[in-house]
């Protein structure tokens, strides 16, 4: 787990440095002396290994600060725990993503602090849409296998897989925003602003979840313990709801992990289409700008979410299936 995080941080660091161009090489033709001075200020002229160690140190090593600490464009921490018992104004501060190289009056920490809650709200809503639509459709399809319901559900699922948000977004905007005028096409802030983008993101996921639920449930329904449950006279609702679904949901939860990580850290297309100030946009723009610190920050954030999501997935296994023990 930590190996993966470490590998990702190294690969990203090396890869983004291999790409030609730098954060200060703009088309406006900045004098070389200024570029040099900027490189020096942000220590971009130091050896790569030194830069990497420097960056990781700022990120990982917690710091105790006294009351002279002020948030600045080089020092801005995500986690700030006041420790007044050690003296007035003393605090433990952790995870400093460093200054943004492209937006020089902002820190990466600040950008993440602004964008992450928005992206997370959208991501959670999209995930809910995916699960709330996907699981019941998949269940119905599996319970009514090879009937009209099954074929209908699976056709809808193929439809969903074929409509990426890049198509669904404009379509929803036109239908609900422009023609029916019931929901805003762009913007952010109210529940109404959340509905369309959440659907644009979640519908495709719901199709995937529906297919997976169906396949998994079909397999589970053939198990002996389902026959046992029926044989001892349990009602169909209990058999399906408690015995079957609980086991069938495990593969679904498995894919939900990475999916959640991707959704929570923002998706560029939907954020662009709907004008949402999330993290996905900062991420994509940072690569074009060669904003090295912002690239590192968002990638590591994503990787961390992925690791945590997978951990939660592993923990829920034990919840759904006590046979799986955590080692």
């Amino acid at each position, binding site marked *: 787990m930590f190996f993966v995080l470490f590998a990702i941080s190294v690969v990203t660091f090396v890869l983004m440095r291999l790409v030609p161009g730098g954060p200060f090489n703009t088309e406006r033709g900045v004098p070389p002396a200024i570029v040099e001075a900027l490189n020096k200020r942000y220590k971009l002229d130091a050896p790569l290994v030194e830069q990497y160690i420097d960056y990781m140190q700022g990120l990982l090593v917690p710091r105790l600060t006294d009351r002279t600490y002020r948030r600045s464009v080089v020092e801005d921490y995500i986690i700030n725990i006041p420790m007044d018992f050690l003296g007035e104004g003393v605090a433990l501060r952790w995870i400093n993503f460093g200054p943004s190289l492209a937006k020089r009056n902002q820190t990466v920490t600040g950008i993440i602090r602004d964008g992450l809650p928005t992206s997370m709200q959208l991501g959670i809503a999209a995930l809910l849409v995916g699960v709330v639509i996907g699981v019941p459709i998949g269940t119905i399809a599996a319970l009514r296998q090879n009937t009209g319901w099954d074929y209908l559900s699976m056709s809808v699922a*193929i439809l969903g897989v074929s409509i990426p948000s*890049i198509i669904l977004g404009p379509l929803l905007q*036109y239908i609900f925003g422009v*023609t029916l005028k019931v929901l805003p096409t762009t913007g952010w802030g109210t529940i109404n602003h959340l509905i369309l983008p959440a659907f644009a993101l979640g519908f495709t996921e719901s199709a995937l979840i529906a297919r997976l639920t169906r396949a998994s449930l*079909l397999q589970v329904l053939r198990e002996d313990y389902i026959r046992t449950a029926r044989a001892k006279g349990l009602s169909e609702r209990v058999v399906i709801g408690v015995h079957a679904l609980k086991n069938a949901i495990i593969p679904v939860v498995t894919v939900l992990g990475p999916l959640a990580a991707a959704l929570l850290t923002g998706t*560029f297309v939907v954020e662009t289409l709907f004008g949402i100030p999330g993290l996905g946009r900062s991420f994509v723009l940072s690569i*074009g700008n060669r904003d090295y610190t912002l690239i590192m920050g968002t990638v590591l954030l994503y990787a961390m979410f992925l690791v945590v999501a997978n951990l939660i997935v592993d923990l829920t296994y034990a919840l759904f299936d006590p046979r799986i023990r955590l080692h």
Partner: protein
Amino acid sequence: MATKSSHKIAYLEAADLPKPQSLWQSAFKRLIRNRLAVMGIFVILFFALLAIFAEQIAPRDFRTQVLAASNSAPLWVTKLFPTMIPISEGGYVKINEDFFFGADNLGRDIMTRVIYGTRVSLLVAIVGPIVALLIGVTLGLISGYLGGWVDNIIMRLTDVFYAFPTLLFIILLMAFFRPTTGRFEPGSIGDFFNRLDGSTGGMLFIFVGIGITSWMQMARLTRGQVLSVREMEYVLAARSLGASPTKIMLRHILPNILGPIIVAETLTIPRYISYEAFLSFIGLGVNPPTPSWGAMISEGAVAIRDYPNQALFPALALFLTMFAFNFVGDGLRDALDPRMRGAE
């Protein structure tokens, strides 16, 4: 009645016995019987014809700008999208019957651009899987057959690539390949690839980027398949006859595991298509003015309130293509393994 006919079938099959059907023949028959899959094949053929004969079919040139006609639309489009009210009825839309799907904000024919956009999407649908197959199957074969530390290294590499955000990787690759024009000396390999990319409208590096970021699943699947056939008698026989590992892998193992690999790859084709659309959407796809559906959707989405036709026609084309490939992929999987219907 029922038993009688089933007897008859059994009898006919017995008569057919001297020439048994191969797996592919019977799969093909099952595929043909799947109406949705056949429909998908026809849709793909239709788009393939559009792509091949784009010059002959397209009513105009995809670059030519008729600025007087910018943002205009024919009457039927305004009927289709009721919010587009023509100037003659007190609205804002210029009516111009010369452009069947309307013209974009630069006065270029949308229909022509949709037709030319087929080329990019279909090429990605063909080349993307091939690149992914080449890398993934090669690594999977080596990993599965050799085992030991080679297997370990390759699988850890796969894990890292899996956890790496595909999006970042692909964007970095694009950024890495793209601005290298002029960095290479004329005549060198780098220069050759740059020219090749330029002459394909920037498609080459999209293929490379998509392929490089999509091989992991293939590598894992191939490795699993290799592990399952590696201990078979025919492999042992080949080995005892002194065949080299390369020969065993390519001549004996690969043909036996190719079926599920091809099916799995067919199922991922829509993903390649949407990747390309996405890359073009964020401006890292084909070089303008080469039309791509993703780029057209991105440009049209800005004007979705006023001119929905500019985003929704390319979106429809993209949807139909992905839909068709999904049906064919599903049909192919069902045909090769009927028990798997509807599974991932």
